[in-house]
């Protein structure tokens, strides 16, 4: 029986890395096939090649037994391959149905859009695959889980028999993920084939029939889900035994350093993002805020850092009210911030390593002479010291930060923020997109800072990370802190439920 898809000897390189190294991959018709691997293992690249977004340097692709060349997404679509990306490819201001038909619009009178036919066609699809969506709503008003459904409908509408789902649960609550799994099962019943890309072991084991594990661009092996278990998969994925919980020593917490009272703020669209957030963080403690992205975490971080105006409420740092203080003042008073988007907020890519390392302290002694002239000697000396202490892999202090790897860039940010000996550290998604080594380093450094007396506010969508590092766990849902728990006295289930709005304190 010919397989649905066969990829032979696929190799793809980018300037700094070999993303896919002679990969062989076989997909059988009607199965749910998991593609498992860490961040950077090459899963998305491989599937992007299948979808025509990249061309492979070497290798062949066979669809239903015949060799094909997939040079662009339209070709892949014609072959019946559809892809739902990790970062949704939806046009925010268009409605659901407009997004679905984009590129394959039904026409009437040879020129105009035929919206009636469109609506009825798409409704058919919704019913067949049991995917409920309000077709006429503008997409940006819908919750993330629903937007994902639209992405799936889009692929189905174009006649996809093979659906590639790239990290689909990264933006879903555990409950929404369950809904997705149900949908995948319906798709399978209807004869579709699904490729499920993920780095989450448990999910892949739960939903997939077979699993292919990638590590550093190479295939480690392909196994049947019912013939393997978590630890075997983990070993394949990482190459060594992985400890699932992280041990850190217990420390006595001292006084309250950061206090947030009834904080309210609105987001960029004018809708309320923070609806009255109250919590405190003490020295010698890590408070982890768990929650699915999009529940106000970004706005919370921005408001505490001074990058967003607080509509109501107070932020108090060691008895000083900083609610109206500008970011520069907050830095001076001892707040450090590791932002969630290092390219947007964390670094000035075209500045050198040295210039980035003094950002935030660039207008004060010792980096200025009399607050006017820059003191290059002091800055250079400082940079060299940090490069050594934080193992920043760079050829020189003058190198533009743009040329460094993601992990190294994050080290620059961490070095800069931590070396200021702050009172409070706000770390927002600090290990996102980093490889294993860099991730471990950042987490270790966070614990180190805590042990030195820092109050750490950790915001992460990675529940494992929250569990591993937090002394207390808070859950954020729809702009509010719905619970604060002691990790020893709660369970993943309870946290998951809280993240989905299930309970309330």
């Amino acid at each position, binding site marked *: 029986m010919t397989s649905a898809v066969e990829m032979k000897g696929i190799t793809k390189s980018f300037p700094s890395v070999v993303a896919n190294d002679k990969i062989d991959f076989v997909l059988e018709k009607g199965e749910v096939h998991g593609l498992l691997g860490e961040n950077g293992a090459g899963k998305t690249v491989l599937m992007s090649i299948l979808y025509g977004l990249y061309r492979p340097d070497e290798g062949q692709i066979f669809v239903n037994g015949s060799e094909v060349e997939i040079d662009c997404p339209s070709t892949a679509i014609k072959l019946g391959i559809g892809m739902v990306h990790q970062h949704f490819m939806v046009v925010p201001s*268009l409605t659901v149905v407009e997004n679905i038909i*984009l590129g394959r619009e039904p026409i009437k009178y040879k020129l105009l*859009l035929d919206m009636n036919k469109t609506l009825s066609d798409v409704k058919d699809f919704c019913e067949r695959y049991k995917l409920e969506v309000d077709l006429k709503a503008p997409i940006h008003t819908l919750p993330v889980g629903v937007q994902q459904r639209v992405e799936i409908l889009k692929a189905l509408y174009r006649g996809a028999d093979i659906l590639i789902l790239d990290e689909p649960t990264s933006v879903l609550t555990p409950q929404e993920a369950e809904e997705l799994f149900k949908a995948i099962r319906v798709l399978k019943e209807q004869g579709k084939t699904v490729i499920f890309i993920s780095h989450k072991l448990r999910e892949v084991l739960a939903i997939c029939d077979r699993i292919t594990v990638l590590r550093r661009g190479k295939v480690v092996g392909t196994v049947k889900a019912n013939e393997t278990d978590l630890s075997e998969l983990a070993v394949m994925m990482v190459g060594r035994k992985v400890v699932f919980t992280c041990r850190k020593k217990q420390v006595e917490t001292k006084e309250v350093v950061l206090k947030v009272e009834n904080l309210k703020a609105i987001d960029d669209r004018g809708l309320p993002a923070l609806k009255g957030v109250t919590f405190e963080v003490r020295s010698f403690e890590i408070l982890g805020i768990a929650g699915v992205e999009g529940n106000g975490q970004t706005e919370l971080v921005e408001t505490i850092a001074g990058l967003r105006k607080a509509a109501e409420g107070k932020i108090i740092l060691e008895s000083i009210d900083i609610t109206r203080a500008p970011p520069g003042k907050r830095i001076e008073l001892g707040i450090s911030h590791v932002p969630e988007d290092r390219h947007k907020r964390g670094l000035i890519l075209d500045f050198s390593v040295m210039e980035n390392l003094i950002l935030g302290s660039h207008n004060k002694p010792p980096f200025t002479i009399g607050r006017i002239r820059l003191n290059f000697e002091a800055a250079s000396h400082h940079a060299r010291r940090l490069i050594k202490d934080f193992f920043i892999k760079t050829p020189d202090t003058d190198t533009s930060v743009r040329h460094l790897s993601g992990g190294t860039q994050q080290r620059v940010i961490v070095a800069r923020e931590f070396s200021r000996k702050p009172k409070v550290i706000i770390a927002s998604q600090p290990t996102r997109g980093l490889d294993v080594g860099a991730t471990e380093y950042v987490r270790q450094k966070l614990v180190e800072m805590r042990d030195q007396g820092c109050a750490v506010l950790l915001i992460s969508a990675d529940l494992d990370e929250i569990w591993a590092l937090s002394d207390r766990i808070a859950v954020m849902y729809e702009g509010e802190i719905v619970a604060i728990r002691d990790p020893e006295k709660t369970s993943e289930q309870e946290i998951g439920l809280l993240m989905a709005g299930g309970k309330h304190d």
Partner: protein
Amino acid sequence: MVEFLDLINVGLFAAALRMATPLAFGSLGGIFSERAGVINIGLEGMMLTGAFAGVAASYFSGSPWFGVLVAVLVGGLLGLLHALITVKFVGDQVVSGTGINIFALGFTAYMSQVIWGSRGASESVQGLPVVPIPLVKDIPIIGEILGAHTPLVYLMPIVAVLSYIVLFKTPIGLRIRAVGEHPAAADTAGINVFKTKYLCVVVSGMLAGLGGAFLSLGHLNLFAWGMTGGRGFIAIAAMILGKWKPFGALGASVLFGFADAFQMRLQALGLLPSQIILTIPYILTVAVLAGVVRRAIPPSNYKPYVKE
């Protein structure tokens, strides 16, 4: 003594429509370009070159309609240049537009000298005829305002309606808006992002050229150095004021056209020194931008789209 009715009368409103025409074409063109994600500051230069090309073509052929056609084509050519620089070669959009504006100033003056021996103004040419609409022109007041203009003025609302239909009721319009707002999404949906951008920028040039043709052929029947006088920029302001929607831009253009006509009237009546009056449209534009922009968020993402 100047009577109120010398200033505010039916003629003023008719003039307002006339002055709005180049602005309307310019801003509608701007909408196409910007909706596809390309900033077009070069509308001024495209308009000016269109004005020149129209007069030159009319001069050599004797037909003002041929002049209009050439103006549109030339505008489109400059649009193509802008598209090439900004889309294919990922050049800075504002710099490219500014370069086109400077080029237009120099080129039109140079060619004026070559053809007519004067860089300041051309000879008079055959302009567009005034075509009264049979029944409408007899309606009191409204008829005088609407009834008797050159055809390009009547074209103005038609183009606005067409623009609306294309952008919001056709597949190509849907694709244009997708390309402008989220090129990656359009790309994965199988749309050719680059072709769409090219098309829209060329159309914006063509419409700007049409606006220029009106200035020269539909109004003064000659070409004068720098005769657009910043109208390309005012058209951009009209586009912003109209929130990048065709009917909004049309309305804003009429507003600015009114200011222009009003200013000309004041000058003719000698109420104030001409220089002070001349500043009115520009100050109004600044005031509009200052008041409006808070609430005006462009629909597009102007980052040049680079495929991996």
